[in-house]
């Protein structure tokens, strides 16, 4: 089995794709969690805030596992990428961790005490950390897309302030808008009555913000990030992906206009998938693009684990992924429908 995989499959490409799929899964699933969090403070009553929390109550934890597993898969399949990115982006990642901890704790603790100051404090913490996490994820992606300085050993050679460049910040803000839009559609699907009416208002606004961010990011990418667009110029067969992405995004306001929120949500999911796919095609075969010395770039070939490890993990993934998908499906099925508060809710 191992030998067959090693001789017949481009395992590096397979794991490039699988790591991408794990992070895409994270963006879709935790994307709406973070979006719900960033909209949380717009609701005013305690009941509405509890409803907001409980729309993601049973699932946020499992959704975050996609990040943990994505990180683990990156470590396993491309240890040099993992080591370079995590040590190079030291402060942003520490802040991301702090944000994710505060968010988890805020969800867990908020409704455990009745005091106004307690709940309000955790509400703020939940919202700020959700926005912060989305922003930091976007900034990281933006920097990877733009390219970062690497030395001949493939180690990060820039400073902290390099990471806060205008392009990365733009991608960061667009990510916040994308997740807020994704989350607002999710809230519309999971609630009813006054809260749902309020969420419909958010939906319209966040769609506008996201589309604005998307246009600006696209223009900035075309103008300033030639390494990401080069592939599409050289291989026009990938242009349909660009078109599909455009259609998926354009379809979101169309479905919202027609009152088809479920379809709008799937369009939003498809937009995330296609954005990640564009990113993956643009990067290929690089995983960390080195600027200004492209010859130091970490690629899916020079930064990978051994063929044997990639093959072993492919077998592990082939066993585990169907299981993971099946219990994710069970959980979403059990908690389908509009959210109701009961004695077990947050």
């Amino acid at each position: 089995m191992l030998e067959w995989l090693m001789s017949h499959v481009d395992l590096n490409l397979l794991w490039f794709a699988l790591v991408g799929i794990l992070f895409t899964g994270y963006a879709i699933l935790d994307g709406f969690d973070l979006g719900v969090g960033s909209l949380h403070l717009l609701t005013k009553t305690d009941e509405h805030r509890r409803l907001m929390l409980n729309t993601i109550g049973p699932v946020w934890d499992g959704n975050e596992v996609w990040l943990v597993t994505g990180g683990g898969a990156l470590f396993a399949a491309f240890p040099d990428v993992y080591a370079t990115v995590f040590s190079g982006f030291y402060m942003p990642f520490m802040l991301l961790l702090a944000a994710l901890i505060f968010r988890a704790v805020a969800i867990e603790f908020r409704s455990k005490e009745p005091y106004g100051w307690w709940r309000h404090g955790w509400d703020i913490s939940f919202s700020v950390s959700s926005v912060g996490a989305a922003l930091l994820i976007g900034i990281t992606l933006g920097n990877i897309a733009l390219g970062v300085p690497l030395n001949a050993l493939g180690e990060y050679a820039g400073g902290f302030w390099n990471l806060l460049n205008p392009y990365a910040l733009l991608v960061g803000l667009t990510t916040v808008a994308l997740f807020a839009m994704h989350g607002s559609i999710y809230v519309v699907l999971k609630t009813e009555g006054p809260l749902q009416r309020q969420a419909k208002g958010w939906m319209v606004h966040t769609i506008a913000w996201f589309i604005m961010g998307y246009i600006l990011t696209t223009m900035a990418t075309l103008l300033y990030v030639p390494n990401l667009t080069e592939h599409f110029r050289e291989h026009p067969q990938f242009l349909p992906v660009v078109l599909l992405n455009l259609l998926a995004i354009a379809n979101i306001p169309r479905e919202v206009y027609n009152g088809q929120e479920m379809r709008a949500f799937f369009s939003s999911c498809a937009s995330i998938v296609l954005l990640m796919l564009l990113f993956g095609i643009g990067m290929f075969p690089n995983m960390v693009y080195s600027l200004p010395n492209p010859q130091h770039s970490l690629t899916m070939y020079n930064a990978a684990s051994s063929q044997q490890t990639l093959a072993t993990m492919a077998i592990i993934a082939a066993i585990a992924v169907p299981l993971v998908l099946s219990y994710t499906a069970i959980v979403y099925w059990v908690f389908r429908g509009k959210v109701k508060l009961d004695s077990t809710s947050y």
Partner: protein
Amino acid sequence: MMDVTLLARIQFALTIAFHYIFPPLSIGLGVLLVIMEGLYLKTGNPLYHRMTRFWVSVFALIFGIGVATGLVMEFQFGTNWATYSRYVGDIFGSALAAEGLFAFFLESGFLAILVFGWNKVGKGLHFFSTLMVALGSMFSAVWIVVANSWMQTPAGFHIVSNHGVARAEVTDFWAMVLNPSSLDRLSHVLSGAWLAGATLVLSVSAYYYLKNRHLDFAKAGVKIALGFLAVACCTQLLSGHSSAMLVAKYQPAKLAALEGHFHTGPADLYLMGVVDEPGKRVLGLKIPGGLGLLLSANPQQVVPGLDRFPPEEQPPVQVPFQAYHLMIAIGMGLIGLATLGLFFWWRGTLFEQRWLLWAMVLSVLGPQVANQAGWIAAEVGRQPWIVYGLLKTKDAVSRAVGAEQVLGSIVLFSGIYLLLFVLFLYLLTQKIRKGPQDEAASKIHPPEAAGAFNPAMKNRPLLTGLNTATERTD
């Protein structure tokens, strides 16, 4: 400027020590939840149902903080120990990825049903979820302990040059997974986790009994936890002994440090003592020839001392020695507690022994301290190596990270963890003070309760909403 290696070690020690309060509790409590809910399904006695619900709510609190602090651990290999990550990624990474795929998804997926699903799924599926959560939490220990054991006793690999930099690559996956210390260390870690869960339930139940509250709940809790404690004590003793034998065989320098054995020759066994490192001796209470006796039933057995190793390959002695002996002392204390508990239970006078019940209340601290001490002994005793015999700790840190960055994140995480710890203790105390809910609030399908709850909540002004919200059982 402080040393990056030292700072990175302090940060790792701090974050792992805090994290490691929680997973053992969820592993141990997970098994007890299976027992409690199993008893409920078998007997139909609502007492067990109340018990399961109370402990599920405690489990959820513990699990939440365990996940939040665990995320830090996974990031930290890359942020602070990038060189190590490059060196072991081929080996360590697959264990970590498998942990995510097999354990974390199982755990977090079914936890949703365990905690939030009481009114949504039938009894059978709920019990199945409890079982899966317990299994998932044990799986997560499997993979991380395999990875750590590989760092103690590397196997199934070869060293290759990867673009001019040396790294370890797997040659035999199963030899790597089942490296010489994996199974013993895994059973030792799991037993420690069971002890942590057992003493938590034991402590709270005994406390209720002593305070004359929830008596039936308290008595049943003490018995279930005591039984589980006794089982865990047995597996702990066995796995502890075989772990020590393994250390003797594969990590003689560590064994010498654990026992303060400086000079090669017949070895004594210390019950307690103080290491005089400059004077290369231990002052304390000892069984002459005791170590040889334990290892090979021969008090004259020649055991290699620290003098066999060049100074730059010797671990520090005082810290591993004290941590190791503290762990053993606590382990013996727990065995004593379990034995006395079982004896009085058999005599039928368990609940008349108030002093013993008070000891049970305090026992919750025992496994916590022993688990930490055990890790310290294992990890400090491996120094100066991060991967035994292959890679030194000082060569493993991130090259792209400066001391001030590590210091900054230590300050950040110390602050956050302190806050988390205070909040955790506060909420746990609140939960214990509130106690298990009576039956009316915790029926599996309470149509009237659920129905009454929601309309009452609707469109209420903030304050009334808050009052209603305090009635939640969780």
